[in-house]
């Protein structure tokens, strides 16, 4: 084995004295398990020092001059570890790489320079897809720690973890994997897959005892909880309660507080500062009871004397199912505080008739099965292999996936079938340029887009189809959002309640949209969904649209009764999907890339520039939380979302305002010098000669709208803005304020004249319109009336959708 048998003195010095090791840690150390040179799967109960052991293994690898990766599924935990390890591994550089997916981002410690890389599985997946750009550091890694190894079995995240492992191990044959988990039903099988060894112990610092309370009616549950929590708190304990939904967490914690028990609630919907505050209060003992959703089941170290499993079932999207044993144990593992409790208690609350409950205490963990057994997940990973150039032929692909956990478990779908679907849908092509050799697999442009943005192939495909549809040129901003929200990568999709259907209907009626102008049947077809899922898509698109209007996640969350966190995540996820959308509508740079082999049957027609412009603008709107007006500022080179928002807040709301502003005024904005402002103004004026600041504005329900710019005597948007201005009469003129700068409007031989630059250039400016409105101009009043009644009810009732029978 390579230099691993003897431990140099230096390393011994970095170890804590062995007296401090707990029994399993000592045994692992005595056996030299972490130094054996093999991959290792460690299964130890929660809180028994797995992360601590990993830290020792990392220290050794770093001492040998190699690098280490630590994978954790939680971003919050990654940051906690960064803090701890920056001190622990002083002298080595520790980097954290959790940014969502493939977005470009500058990290404080770049990949190349980090000795210890703390990452999410998705990040590592992204790195391996673009392995050439990461070749400077990937080969130097000696150890890959996978915390919460059972994530492999997660339907959503498992396949990306598995794909990342598969590729990292192929790219770095020297890599050792250290997998950690408290709950694995098939530890030996996983170790065998990793060609390593495994270790297991049930030892706990604080032993736990299990019991259950039975109820006859669900209404009895809160009473049981209050009694148990009170007893625990009165005896000086702390209590963790796991429930199935955020709402229930909030309700129960309110109820407990009302009963005089200091309680808080914890779930993924909280802002990180709220969560941190809560964690501090709980650790300090000020909060005695914490009611939480599943978010606490991984990683965070918040132990309690009593852990209550209030709900023993969970909602899997369609149905309520009994909680897996693994999940129950992940949660139960928090029972018993080191040094504070001599015993931890686990309480299961279940219905009297349910016999199954008692089996939880036996701890027969479920087998972790590969998520790649799912064809869609496999399709994504298959495409990643092809696009990254790691598998260039069909046999290569077969051999690669023969190494997967799915294959190891005999659950791998038929690769040829999946590949056939992919070639048929135009994500992959198979080219044979030499009769002797196996035909070469290549990812098409669409395929590469999916890989780059880490999207499911079907997502990219459905967008491409939407944009290739004959109705595509008339898609509005809201329609594009709908198309994105309908894809499987849109996350979260926020469900609609029955009570809010009317409100949603009203909001939808105001959306310029061509999808909504069609019949409900067509809408179901366009979106590929029906029923409540379709309602959730509609609501989610509305939320996203509101985000672009206000740019304030809190406001949007309040308005739609969802969580700030959800709005943020949604914006992030849509940003990624829209990046793919932009790539789809942007014609490839060199024609070479669209040779016949690359043009599959279902290739998107590259439609007119108008749709492409809208998609591009929408991507920027969602990314920065700005509306279609403010986003025009980003047409100017050097102005991104942040500056555009600052300019807007200073009254420069669009590119026309900027073109007409003076550089001194613009330089008032933070971070803008006068010379920079002058350049912008010049460029804005230049752009204005070819594009209007209003080009993206839409109104009316497409197809049914009675209004069009052609039959209006004025530009409706300028008119809307004129309505916001204040007009004051001075002796011989009008003073118009409320915009960036006040302007003077005077009577002229014909009509009115303004001193703004827009007027000079021959526009009827908003200032002049404001004066005409103040003069009660009849023609303008009429237009204003027509504009304000501009919303037409949907042709169908949302309730209809609510009662759709949900078909999968």
């Amino acid at each position, binding site marked *: *084995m*390579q230099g691993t048998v003897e431990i140099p003195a230096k390393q011994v010095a970095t170890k804590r004295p062995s007296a401090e090791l707990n029994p399993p840690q000592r045994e692992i150390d005595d056996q030299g398990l972490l130094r054996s*040179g*093999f*991959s290792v799967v460690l299964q130890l109960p929660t809180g028994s020092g797995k992360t601590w052991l990993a830290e020792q293994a990392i220290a050794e690898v770093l001492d040998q001059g190699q690098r280490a990766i630590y994978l954790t599924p939680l971003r919050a935990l990654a940051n906690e570890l960064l803090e701890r390890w920056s001190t622990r591994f002083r002298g080595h550089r520790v980097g954290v790489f959790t940014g969502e997916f493939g977005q470009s981002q500058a990290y404080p410690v770049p990949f190349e320079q980090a000795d210890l890389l703390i990452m999410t599985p998705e990040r590592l997946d992204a790195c391996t897809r673009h392995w050439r750009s990461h*070749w400077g550091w990937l*080969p*130097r890694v000696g150890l890959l720690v996978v915390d919460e190894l059972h994530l492999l079995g997660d339907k959503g995240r498992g396949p990306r973890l598995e794909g990342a492992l598969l590729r990292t*191990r*192929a*790219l770095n*044959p*020297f*890599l*050792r994997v250290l997998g950690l988990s408290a709950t694995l039903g098939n530890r030996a099988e996983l170790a065998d897959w990793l*060609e390593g060894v495994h270790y297991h112990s049930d030892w706990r610092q604080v032993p736990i005892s299990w019991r259950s309370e039975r109820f006859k009616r669900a209404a009895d549950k809160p009473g049981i909880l209050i009694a148990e929590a009170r007893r625990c708190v009165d005896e000086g304990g702390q209590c963790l309660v796991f429930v199935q939904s955020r709402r229930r967490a909030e309700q129960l914690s309110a109820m407990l507080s009302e009963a005089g028990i200091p309680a808080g609630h914890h779930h993924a919907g909280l802002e990180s500062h709220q969560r941190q505050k809560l964690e501090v209060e709980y650790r300090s003992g000020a909060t005695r009871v914490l009611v939480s959703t599943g978010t606490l089941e991984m990683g965070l170290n918040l132990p309690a004397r009593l852990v209550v499993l209030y709900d023993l079932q969970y909602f899997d999207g369609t149905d309520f199912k009994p909680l897996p044993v693994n999940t129950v144990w992940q949660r139960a593992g928090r029972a018993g505080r080191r040094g504070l409790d001599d015993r931890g208690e686990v309480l299961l609350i279940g219905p009297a008739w349910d016999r199954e409950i008692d089996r939880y205490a036996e701890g027969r963990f479920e087998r972790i099965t590969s998520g790649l057994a799912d064809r869609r997940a496999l399709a994504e990973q298959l495409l990643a292999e092809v696009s990254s*150039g*790691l*598998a*260039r*032929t069909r*046999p*290569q692909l*077969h*051999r*690669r996936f*023969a*190494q997967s956990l799915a*294959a*190891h478990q005999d659950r791998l779908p038929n690769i040829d079938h999946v590949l056939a679907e992919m070639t048929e849908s135009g994500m992959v092509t198979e080219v044979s340029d030499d009769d002797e*050799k*196996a035909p070469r697999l290549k990812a098409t442009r669409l395929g590469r887009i999916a890989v780059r943005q880490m999207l499911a192939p079907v997502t990219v495909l459905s967008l491409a189809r939407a944009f290739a549809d004959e109705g595509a040129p008339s898609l509005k901003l809201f329609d594009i959002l709908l198309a994105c929200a309908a894809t499987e990568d849109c996350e979260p999709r926020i469900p609609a309640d029955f009570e809010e259907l009317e409100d949603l209907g009203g909001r939808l009626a105001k959306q310029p949209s061509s999808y909504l102008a069609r019949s409900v049947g067509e809408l179901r077809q366009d979106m590929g969904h029906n029923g409540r899922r379709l309602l959730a898509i509609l609501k989610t698109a509305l939320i996203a649209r509101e985000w672009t209007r206000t740019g304030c996640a809190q406001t949007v969350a309040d308005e739609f009764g969802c969580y700030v966190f959800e709005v943020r995540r949604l914006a992030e996820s849509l940003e990624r999907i829209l990046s793919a959308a932009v790539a789809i509508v942007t014609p490839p740079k060199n024609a070479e890339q669209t040779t016949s082999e690359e043009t599959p049957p279902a290739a998107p027609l590259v439609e007119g520039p108008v749709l492409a412009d809208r998609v591009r603008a929408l991507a920027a709107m969602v990314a920065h939380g700005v509306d279609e007006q403010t986003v025009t500022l980003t047409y100017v080179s050097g102005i991104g979302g942040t500056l555009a928002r600052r300019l807007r807040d200073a009254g420069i709301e669009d590119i026309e305002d900027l073109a007409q502003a003076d550089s001194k005024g613009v330089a008032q904005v933070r971070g803008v010098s006068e010379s920079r402002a002058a350049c912008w103004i010049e460029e804005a004026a230049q752009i204005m000669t070819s594009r209007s600041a209003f080009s993206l504005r839409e109104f009316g329900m497409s197809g049914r709208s009675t209004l069009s710019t052609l039959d209006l005597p004025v530009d409706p948007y300028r008119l809307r803005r004129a309505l916001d201005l204040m007009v004051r009469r001075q002796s011989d003129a009008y003073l118009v304020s409320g915009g960036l700068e006040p302007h003077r409007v005077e009577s002229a031989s014909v009509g009115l004249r303004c001193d703004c630059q827009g007027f000079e250039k021959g526009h009827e400016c908003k200032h002049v319109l404001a004066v005409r409105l103040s003069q009660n101009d009849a023609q303008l009043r009429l237009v204003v009336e027509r504009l304000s009644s501009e919303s037409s009810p949907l042709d169908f009732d949302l309730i209809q959708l609510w009662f759709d029978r949900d078909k999968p």
Partner: protein
Amino acid sequence: MTHSKPPDHINTTRGVIKFPAYFPVTTFGDKYPLDDLVRPYLPRLAPAIMVSLHYARQMKDRPTMPMLIDSGGFASLFDGARVVAQRGFGVLETTHDEKVEVLHPKDVLEFQEQHADLAFTLDFPVPPSMDPEEGKRRVELTIANARWALQNRRRKDLLLYACVQGWDVDSFRACAKAYAGLPFDGLAIGGMVPRVSDFKSVLEIVDAVRAEVPNKPLHVFGLGKPGLVDTLFKRGVQSVDSSSYVKLAADGRLWGQPAVKLGDASPTERLQLALCNLAMATQRALPLSAAHLMFGSRLWESRNQAGLDIATKPGRRTKTATQPLTAPT
């Protein structure tokens, strides 16, 4: 004749090279992409790398491990190459796309001074079929170049090996004699690759050179087959170099298993094959995930369906089979 022995290591500023040593050859540039995949792993399997001047010139990031740069004099064997005497030195003229390139010992040394830890002097191999007169001229120029390099070396920590060429045992011996007593750090025997089919005569040449310089490290260019290497090391050679590990891998082959050929190896499979081959040659620990290439596993079975030609199917992997990960010697 002294009775002292050659050293058991040499020191470079980038690390100690212990003898006997096996130096993997690597290249830079676009010609052999597999080398870029393999190179980052070489420090785990070898004490130093060997690069030919032509490829070293295309290097962008210098590896941190000790690097040996040879002179590229073997190009004198190519069609259209000429060895020209200029003021007593041997200069190599090659023609590429009608353009004549000139390689002067000065160019070689200058580059080596900048990048190498160990340098080989500009030599001109004598193929077995060459006219003896021309052979003699080439050996004389090889010696002149070596002496010039020794006198003009500026970097103290640049190790310099003089290249030994010849056309028969006596001429090799004579060439080595010309270096005896000069303060070279070692001698390197060239021109052996075309003679390998007559391995007996290779060994005679090695013996003859060794007898002339008993106390200096001796390197043999280009002979890296595991079987041969053992014999050479036993014969008192300190080091060899070879690119066979990666050439075989590019061809989907494993050293010592002629029955195995992966007809259509993927980039990472070639990487694994190359590392396995090198681990065999250097007798270091095999890379973990390549172990199954050697010991058989489910991979073999899947490969069977997936286009691998194997004569015999190794047995199913057992726990004991994975344990002795060091290559069989």
